[in-house]
C-alpha cells in the first residue's frame, strides 16, 4: 500500500487573472512508506508547491491525494483504502497535518526570543496533550540531537547547524510518520549538510517516510535516497525507479 498517492494533481495560482500560472501540472506520483524520496529540480520547478499539497498546507486546483496508513482523531478506525484529503474541510486537514507530517523549512522558521525547548514544543501546544508529556518528549529529542544543553537558550544564540537540529526536533515533536523538508541544506555548509543527511538516515531507520525537496547533490546523490523524482516547469520529468 502506498503511503501517499497523487493522481493528476495540478495547482494554479491567481486563477482567472492575467497573472495566472500553473505551478504543478498534472502530476501523478506514489510515495512509498519508510523511504526517502527526493524532489529534485531548479527553483520554480514546482517542488515546494507539490510538497505543500502533500503536507495538507494547500489544496490542489484539481486532482486527488490519498493518504494511507494514518488515523486522525476524528476517524473511528484506520481507513483501509486511505483518506482522500483534497476534499476535507480545513479542520480535519489541520488534524491530519499535525499528526502525520513534520515540516523542516529552508529558513528553519523558528520563533526568536523564546527558548529552544519552547520552539521544539510549539507544534504540540494546540493539540491539547498534557504539557508534561510533550515536554518530556521534547527533552528526549534535544538529547537525541545533542542540543539539550541549549534547551533554555533563545534560538538566536545558536549556530546554523544547531538551528537545523532544533527545526528537525520540532518537526518530530508530534511523532509524525512523514517528514517533509524543503531545501534543508540551502543554508548549510558541506559538513553540516552531511550531518543533516546522517540525521535523515537515523529517521529512515526509525521508519519515517521522508520527502525532501532539494537541488543539492549532497542530498540527491546520497545513498540514503531511495528515489529521486525530477521536476521542471511544474511537471515530473523523471520519476526515478521505484525502490
Amino acid at each position: 500500500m502506498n503511503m501517499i498517492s497523487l493522481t493528476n494533481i495540478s495547482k494554479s495560482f491567481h486563477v482567472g487573472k492575467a497573472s495566472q500560472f500553473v505551478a504543478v501540472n498534472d502530476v501523478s506520483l506514489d510515495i512509498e512508506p519508510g523511504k526517502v524520496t527526493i524532489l529534485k529540480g531548479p527553483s520554480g520547478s514546482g517542488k515546494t508547491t507539490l510538497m505543500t499539497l502533500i503536507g495538507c498546507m494547500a489544496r490542489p486546483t484539481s486532482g486527488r491525494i490519498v493518504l494511507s496508513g494514518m488515523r486522525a482523531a476524528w476517524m473511528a478506525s484506520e481507513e483501509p483504502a486511505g483518506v482522500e484529503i483534497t476534499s476535507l474541510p480545513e479542520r480535519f486537514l489541520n488534524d491530519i497535518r499535525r499528526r502525520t507530517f513534520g515540516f523542516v523549512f529552508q529558513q528553519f522558521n523558528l520563533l526568536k526570543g523564546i527558548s529552544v525547548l519552547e520552539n521544539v514544543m510549539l507544534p504540540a501546544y494546540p493539540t491539547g496533550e498534557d504539557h508534561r508529556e510533550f515536554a518530556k518528549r521534547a527533552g528526549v529529542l534535544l538529547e537525541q540531537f545533542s542540543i539539550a544543553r541549549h534547551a533554555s537558550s533563545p534560538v538566536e544564540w545558536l549556530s546554523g547547524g544547531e538551528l537545523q537540529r532544533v527545526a528537525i526536533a520540532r518537526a518530530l515533536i508530534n511523532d509524525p510518520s512523514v517528514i517533509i523538508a524543503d531545501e534543508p541544506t540551502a543554508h548549510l555548509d558541506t559538513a553540516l549538510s552531511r550531518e543533516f543527511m546522517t540525521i535523515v538516515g537515523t529517521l529512515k531507520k526509525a521508519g519515517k517516510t521522508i520527502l525532501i525537496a532539494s537541488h543539492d547533490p549532497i542530498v540527491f546523490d546520497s545513498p540514503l535516497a531511495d528515489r529521486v523524482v525530477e521536476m521542471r516547469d511544474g511537471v515530473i520529468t523523471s520519476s526515478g525507479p521505484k525502490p
Partner: protein
Amino acid sequence: MNRTIERHKNILEFSLSSLLRRKTKNASLLAIYTLIVFAIASLLFFLSAMKREALLILKDAPDMVVQRMEAGRQDLVPLSYAKEIAALRGVREVKPRLWGYYYDSPSGGNLTVMTAEMPAGFIKIGSGVSRLRRATAADVIVLQSYDNEVPLMLEIEEVLPYESELAAADLVIMSELDFRKLFKFPQGHATDLALTVANPRELSTLAGKIVDKFPDARPILKSEMLRTYDSIFDWRGGMMLVMMIAAVLSFIIFAWDRATGLSAEERKEIGILKSIGWETSDVLLLKFWEGAVISLSAFFFGVIAAYVHVYFFSAPLFQPVLKGWSVLYPQFKLVPAVDTYQLGVLFFLTVAPYTFATIIPCWRAATIDPDAAMRS
C-alpha cells in the same frame, strides 16, 4: 473536555512566554494601562465612599428645613413662623436652628458655628479646628464678636470624635447665648427651622401649605438635600473625569496602535505557527490570551492600587479636587464602599475593548494559508 482545558493551558503558557519576548514594550503598556485603571477606579471608589458618608450624615437630617428669603437671599426666620408652622396639621415638631459661619482671621479658616443645649462659656470643636488652633479639651479659644466689644473667651469642653471628621472638621458648637453674643444675632429670630413630620409622604403637600402661608418661606425637603449632595459629588467627579479623558484618549490611541499594528515580525510568526499545524482558532486564542493577560493584569493591579489609595491612604491624589477648597481639610479614613455595578462597567470598558482590539487585526493574518511560511 480535558483536552480543551489542556489546550487553553498550553496556549496561555505560550502566550506568557510570547509576551515576555517584548518585555519593555509590554511592561510600558501594562504600566500606562494600570495607571488609567487606577485613576478611574480611584475616582469611582472615592465618589462611592463620599456619597455613602453624605448619606450617613443626611440620615439624621430633618425631614424639611424652612428658610426665609429676603429679595431672593436667605434671611433670618422670625420665631413666630415656628409657632404657626407647628400648628399645621401633620407637623410633629419645629425646631428653630441657629448656625452660621465664622471667619477665623488668625488661621484664615472658615468655621461652621452651631448651637446646642450646653452651658455658656463652653464649646465643642471639630478636630480640624483643634488642629488649626492647636487647642484641645480644657484650652480656651478666643473668638472676636461682631459688636467689636470684649472678645469671647470659650473653654473647649470636648474635641469631637475622629469618626465624625468629614462632617464636623470645621465645626464649633456653643450655647445659644454665646452664639447670639458672637454674631450679635437678634433675639426672636433663628437661622432656619428644622421640621419633623408625622408622614414623610405628605412632605410636599406640607411644603405647599407653608409657602401659601408664608410666601417668603423656602421649604427644602430631605430628598432635595440628598439630590444636592449627589450632584455635588457627581459634578466634582465629572470634572475629574473630564481631566482624565485626555489621558484615557491618549491611552486608547496608544493601545489601538499597539493592538492593531501587527508588525511584519508578528505576521511572520503567525505564518510559522500556521505552517507547523496551528489552526486559525489556535492563533486567535493565543492573541486573545496575550490581550487578556495584559488587560486583566492592568485591571486587577489598577483596582487594587486604587482601593489602597482611597481606603488606606484616603485618596491623597484627589482630595483637593474632590473634597472642595478649604483651609480646613477634613482628615479621615473612608469606609470602603465598592459599587460592583460601576466596577463591572469599568471592567468591560477597559478589559474587553483591548482584548478584542488585539484579536481583530490578527484575524486577517491568521487566515493566511499555512504554505505562506514555506515560501518566506
